[in-house]
């Protein structure tokens, strides 16, 4: 089986075999490329000679070559602002292994911070405002209720004291100094009434009263408290207040009052919710009050003012409010 030779195989034959060692097929192949045995032999010797040849080593590269190249490299890869940007947006990831991610994270954190600063506080403010508005609304409603209750309470308590004063006057008028013995008993009853009212007020969460600057709103109408001072049930019922009331009672003497003397009487219509001033005699006023008190619920009678017609009376006007056992006070007389 003959082997197919190529020109490139000649070098192998030249290295490995002398011309005489070639087989006929190889000789045939060699002679197609080499003219003679001598040439074959000469080429073979040349290969060995070349391989054995100690080639003159090239002189070493001058150090200046490397120095020049390194300076060229430095100038070519000079780091600067452009390199900084290239690092940031480097196509080659090996360039931005740390810097670009750090910048990206910093930007992300900054944007997040700005968003938090801009949006979240405003939302909190809105929520806070809404909460405050609700609280104020609730507070306003409670104040309106308080104002309403307080007005009623104030009138009630004022009425209590003034009824007492009026009754004292009436007692004095009616009996002309002959029933003083019963007065102290009535005062004691009045004080019991005050205690009862106090208990009721305690159950109603101890109203705090109104300042003269408070403005209450009921059914869309603005109500300004009548009295400039703060009045609370507790204050009204304090011992100090009672002492003042008793002093007032002393000042409220109407020595010359007669049954037919006319007084201003505020009649309060519960259903209509209005007060009307009527001029009645003292006797008629008492009768009217007694009728009202005996025939209706005392709580429905809110207030009544009695105006003394006596010029000698130092107190021109007192407020009269009904209270629980006002009926007893009147019916006694």
């Amino acid at each position: 089986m003959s082997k197919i030779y190529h020109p490139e195989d000649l070098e192998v034959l030249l290295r490995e075999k002398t011309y005489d060692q070639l087989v006929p097929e190889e000789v045939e192949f060699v002679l197609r490329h080499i003219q003679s045995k001598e040439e074959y032999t000469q080429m073979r010797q040349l290969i060995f000679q070349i391989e054995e040849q100690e080639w003159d080593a090239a002189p070493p590269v001058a150090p200046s070559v490397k120095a020049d190249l390194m300076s060229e490299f430095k100038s070519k890869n000079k780091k600067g602002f452009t390199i900084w940007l290239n690092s940031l947006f480097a196509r080659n990831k090996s360039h931005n292994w740390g810097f670009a991610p750090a910048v990206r994270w910093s930007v992300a954190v900054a944007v997040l911070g700005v968003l938090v600063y801009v949006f979240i506080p405003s939302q909190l403010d809105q929520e806070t405002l809404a909460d405050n508005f609700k609280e104020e609304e609730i507070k306003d409603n409670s104040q309106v209720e308080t104002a309403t209750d307080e007005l009623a309470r104030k009138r009630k308590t004022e009425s209590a004291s003034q009824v007492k004063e009026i009754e004292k006057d009436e007692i004095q008028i009616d009996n002309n100094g002959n029933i003083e013995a019963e007065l102290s008993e009535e005062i004691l009853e009045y004080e019991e009434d005050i205690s009862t009212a106090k208990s009721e007020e305690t159950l109603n969460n101890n109203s705090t009263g109104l300042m003269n600057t408070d403005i209450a709103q009921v059914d869309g109408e603005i109500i300004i408290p009548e009295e400039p001072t703060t009045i609370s049930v507790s204050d009204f019922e304090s011992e100090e207040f009672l002492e003042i009331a008793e002093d007032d009672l002393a000042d409220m003497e109407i020595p010359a009052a007669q049954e037919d003397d006319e007084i201003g009487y505020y009649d309060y219509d519960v259903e209509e919710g209005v007060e009307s001033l009527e001029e009645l005699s003292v006797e008629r006023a008492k009768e009217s009050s007694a009728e009202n008190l005996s025939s209706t619920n005392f709580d429905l009678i809110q207030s009544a003012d009695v105006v003394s017609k006596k010029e000698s009376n130092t107190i021109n006007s007192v407020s009269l409010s009904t209270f629980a056992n006002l009926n007893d006070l009147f019916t006694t007389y």
Partner: protein
Amino acid sequence: MLFGKKYQQLSDEELMNKSSDGDQRAFSEIYNRYSQKMMNYFYRMLWQDKEKAEDFTQEIFSKLIQQPKKFDANKKFSSWLYSVAANMCKNEYRHQEVVNRASDELAHTYDDRTEMSDGVDKQFFKSELNRALDLLNADQRTVFIMKFKQGLKAKEIAEILDCSEGTVKSRVFYSLKILSKELESFKTYLK
């Protein structure tokens, strides 16, 4: 020292990638590995002209600096570098007629010297061999120098020159045939 050891352990291709990214140490390591090889190559290819060989050595590394992206990552770096060097030499051969002129002059000298071939020695044969190499065409000379002076394998030369391994062997054979003819007067020395 740690960095130096690290760079010495890197492959040519890794160093080239680092160098193209501006790594000065990588470039320095590449230079240390190949500068003398290139010097030798150019020296032998360019008529043992030291100055020219040095210029060409600097030029080829300058190409690496200025145009690192031209490095074909699919190729072995050494093969790519030799191919660049071979092309540089080819261009040098083309743009200068030194080869032919020198060949003519040397041929005349050779003829003179063959007459006194009996007294030749090894050193003289070396010089004559170098002269004969100039008679080869660029491809043949490149292959011959790569094979016999640079010690590259036929496979590597084929990769550098982007040709088949058979082509390389064929060029080697015809180079030997030409040289043998040119150095015929040394047949007594060769024997």
